């Protein structure tokens, strides 16, 4: 049996933490959801996470903050950013920092799946 790749979702919005894991599981991934960057950093999932679906704007440590922190820790996890803010300028910034993709909410399942496949190819 193929062990499904672990996708970790970090988002402060509860409805995302509810709905996105179900969809990801439908895609065939293993999923862990975290409500904050800190919670993720404190978990033991970092090493197994093949892809991180990360919200940009969160109270406390933001998505890009977590991205920098992981880089510092030499944890090269492919990141797919998701954001509800329509600010287009944020996308090139996070991509430059090494993110695989940046999706604007609401996004289609195709866009999400494409981003995840890219991420898993990278990892």
């Amino acid at each position, binding site marked *: 049996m193929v062990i499904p790749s672990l996708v970790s979702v970090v988002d402060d919005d509860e*409805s995302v933490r509810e*709905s996105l894991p179900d969809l990801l599981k*439908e895609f065939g991934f293993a999923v862990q959801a975290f409500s904050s960057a800190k919670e993720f950093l404190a978990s033991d999932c970092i090493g197994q996470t093949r892809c991180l679906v990360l919200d940009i704007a969160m109270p406390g440590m933001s998505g890009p903050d977590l991205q920098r922190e992981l880089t510092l820790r030499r944890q090269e996890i492919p990141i797919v950013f998701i954001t*509800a803010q*329509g600010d287009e300028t944020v996308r090139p910034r996070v991509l430059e920092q090494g993110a695989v993709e940046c999706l604007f*909410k*609401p996004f289609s399942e195709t866009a999400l799946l494409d981003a995840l496949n890219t991420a898993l190819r990278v990892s």
Partner: protein
Amino acid sequence: MEDSQERIGVQNGLLRVVDALPGLVWTALPDGYVDFLNQRWCEYTGLGVEEAYGQGWQTAIHPEDLPELLERWQSILASGEPREMEARLRRFDGEYRWFLFRTCPLADASGRVVKWCGMNTAIDDRRRAEALLAGEKRLLEMIATGKSLSTTLTELCLLVEELCPGCVSCSILLLDLETKKLWLGASPSVPKAYTESIDGFAIGPDASSCGAAAYHGKQIITSDIATDPRWAESRDLALANGLRACWSTPIFSQQNRVLGTFAMFSGKPGNPTTNDQEVIAQITHLASIAIERSRVEENLRRSKAYLSEAQKLSLTGSFGWNVSADEHFWSDETFRIFEYDVSTKVTLQLILERAHPQDIPLIRQAIALAADGRDFDYECRFIMPGGAVKHLHLVAHGTRDQDGRLECIGAVQDVTERRLSEETLGKVRSELAHVARITSLGALTASIAHEVNQPLSGIITNASTCLRMLAADPPNVSGALKTARRTIRDGNRAAEVITRLRALFARTGATTETVDLNEATREVIALSWSEFQRSRVILRSELANDLPPVTGDRVQLQQVILNLLLNASDAMSGVDDRPRQLVIRTERDKCDHVRLTVQDAGIGVEPQGVDKLFEAFYTTKSSGMGIGLSVSRSIIESHHGRLWAAPNDGPGATFSFSIPRGPEGVTGANSFGAIRKPAVTDAVRVMRNP
């Protein structure tokens, strides 16, 4: 013999009479040899008869007068006619006085002169009075023609020395009120060694004669410097320079303040004579005039210099216009500001020649106000010969001169720098406001987007999951139900966001009060006055006196008025070929309505496009959002009124609204719907950032 005895008796009697005469009488032989002098003559001069006989009398004549007197005497002798001559005669005590010498020839039967009779009459007082008068006249002329104070005072001293034989020299010292020291004003004949020592000495109760006179404010007579204790300090120097007596008198101002002292010095101990005192009184009076005049002139010159410097520094000139006489006065700085030579003859034309063509109506208005005796406060532009534009702030006040003639007194300040920097500042401020608006709008959009995108994202994800679960084999129905419920929940959440937003932007209800539309209009005009000045708009208000009050929301109505005024002003911003005239009018309208009209001379409106003006987001302005008029119309409609626009016959357009007078009031807040809050925001924007 008896006859001869009688003759001798008569002659002796006559001689006694002649001796007793109160005049100085003498006789001389035809060649001028004096053979008789009466007793009074001898007593007066102190010469014995033997000493004076023949030519001896000449020793009693003032040496300066003798040559002329002798020459004259010879010519009288030659003429054989009765004549007069003048000379100073020395009294027994050495004082010379002026005398008139009257001479008369005695002839025998053949007409030959056998004897000369003469009588000397004292004319000293007359001569002195004449000299004093001539001196006074000369001095007053010097004062009036603005000769320097030291020249005038020197002349005064010389006059005294001429008039008072007992005075060897005199000095005028000036008092410095702050330091309480006396400084040399004039002392033409006092030895320098002495004057140098007294220059700048402090006054005091016992500080020689002058220091004490200035200190006490009264005359101090030192009849003998050698013994007067006041002279302890300068005694030796004074005596060494031949000064023995000093009579010092304070010189008073009109307000009775001591200005200085006048001192007469005598070479012998003694007191001033009555004559001396008269001269002193006259001279101190003249000196007072001269000193005061000089101080007044000095103060005037100084304050003029200060004023001129202050005007230069503050770029402010002053001007006066005597309207009745059409006489103008401009300060130097006014000439400088208008860039005219100070010698130019001032006329109103000078101002108009420099006026900026667009501001000529404004300037004519100012002139008309001034001619009417009213005050004005305008800012106008002027074009200088070099082409530079100056912004000048003109303020004037109507008044009447001593003769009750109308006068306009004012100031003109060059505010070009300030205006230019204000304009720059205004531009920056409006850019800043624009940026702030964009930014806040952006932030608002982002926040709305975030709030809506979250549930939308949930809806789509859940729906996708739901579809996948249903499409699976076998379908995961319970999972699909769960996700479908979430979809509904997120849909509701999105609807809630919208409701929250509406609540956030809903405005508070309109207030209803009695509004005096005239007063409300005046407030708006006062608020926007500087904006109109800046935009060179000439605002005329024609507010009806008998306007009934209306019932409504005062602030909303003012927003409409302001919006109409600023639109009118904006419509004229490109107008340079005619006055930017704006008329605001209130009047009663038919059917118990009140009407307000704003008429501009701007770019105007197309008749067919008039209705479009009131549509939201329709604008002809590059900087406008096109909300103002639509909001204005909704406000007026909520007041049960009507707002409309019409092109003028000439250039420009007229916007009017008509609302019923009380007491119905405004309909509820709901009639504005959701656009009300942004509408108000826009009106505020118009107010702040026209």
